[in-house]
């Protein structure tokens, strides 16, 4: 099992994701610097962590999405390698065009940092197979720019194709149709604002609802 975590200047959840991947897979991921141009050979999974890449300059995720390693991430995604973007990683994936829509300033303008209820909308994807459709889980969020926006046609298409993976169970940031996480058309790229890696160990995190995302993912890629 070969996983990689992309590290940008300003990433701050890279180690949290690394711990989650190591805990669940038994193998530590390779930490790949944003300026690198290649991923490790035979990579099974790429994670883009939360944080504030490039200080959120220009737009959240905008500069990170244009960094050299993203070309390799796009190639891997095109080959069907699962790519997981959490929080700033989600922002990077939308800015890079790997996922539709954009993440704007929270509707209330506040930085939202708390545990929120999520509904699993699609439990068929590589990322959500260990959940049941409609299941309610608790996962923390911590973001300023999580307000998901896309035109109505795109939103209809996402819903129609089962590409909304998670929705907020309450008002959090003004996201269109309460969308918290979306999949690409092929189903191998997921971006979500909540932090499943901060909810993998009940003793440490007060719950482990995020753990099954990693477990399902690793099962899918055949570990």
């Amino acid at each position, binding site marked *: 099992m070969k996983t990689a975590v992309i590290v940008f200047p300003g990433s701050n959840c890279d180690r949290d994701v690394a711990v989650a991947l190591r805990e669940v897979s038994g193998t530590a991921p390779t930490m790949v610097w944003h300026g690198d141009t290649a991923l490790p050979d035979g990579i099974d999974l790429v994670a883009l962590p939360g944080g504030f890449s490039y200080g959120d300059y*220009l*737009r959240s995720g*905008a500069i990170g999405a*244009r960094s050299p390693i993203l070309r390799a991430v796009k190639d891997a995604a095109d080959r069907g390698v699962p790519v997981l973007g959490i929080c700033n990683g989600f922002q990077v994936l*939308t*800015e890079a065009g790997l996922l*539709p*829509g*954009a993440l*704007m*300033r*929270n*509707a*209330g*303008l506040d930085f939202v940092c708390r545990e929120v209820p999520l509904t699993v909308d699609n439990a068929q994807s590589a990322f959500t197979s260990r959940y049941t459709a409609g299941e309610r889980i608790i996962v923390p969020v911590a973001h300023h720019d999580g*307000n998901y*926006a*896309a035109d109505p046609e795109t939103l209809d298409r996402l819903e129609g194709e089962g590409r909304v993976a998670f929705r907020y169970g309450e008002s959090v940031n*003004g996201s269109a149709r309460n969308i918290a996480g979306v999949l690409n058309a092929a189903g191998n790229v997921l971006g979500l604002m909540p932090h499943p890696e901060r909810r993998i160990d009940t003793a440490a995190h007060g719950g482990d609802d995020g753990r099954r995302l990693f477990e399902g993912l690793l099962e899918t890629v055949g570990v």
Partner: protein
Amino acid sequence: MKLRIFVTLKPGVLDPQGRAIHKALGGLGFDGVNDVRAGKLIELEVEDSVDDAQIDAMCRKLLANTVIENYRVERA
């Protein structure tokens, strides 16, 4: 050559910052403001050899997120 790139939210895209500014203006007693939209001004200093197509590509590829934003280029 100096360029001024104005990046604005597309019509219809909700602008939480504009709304907050609008409210704050009202709080200061400025009546008669019907709407506020906040955008960005990016100033570039470029060689004269940089053509319109290149400037447009810069805007599309990085300076604006065309999912939610429009841009306008002004030559100073």
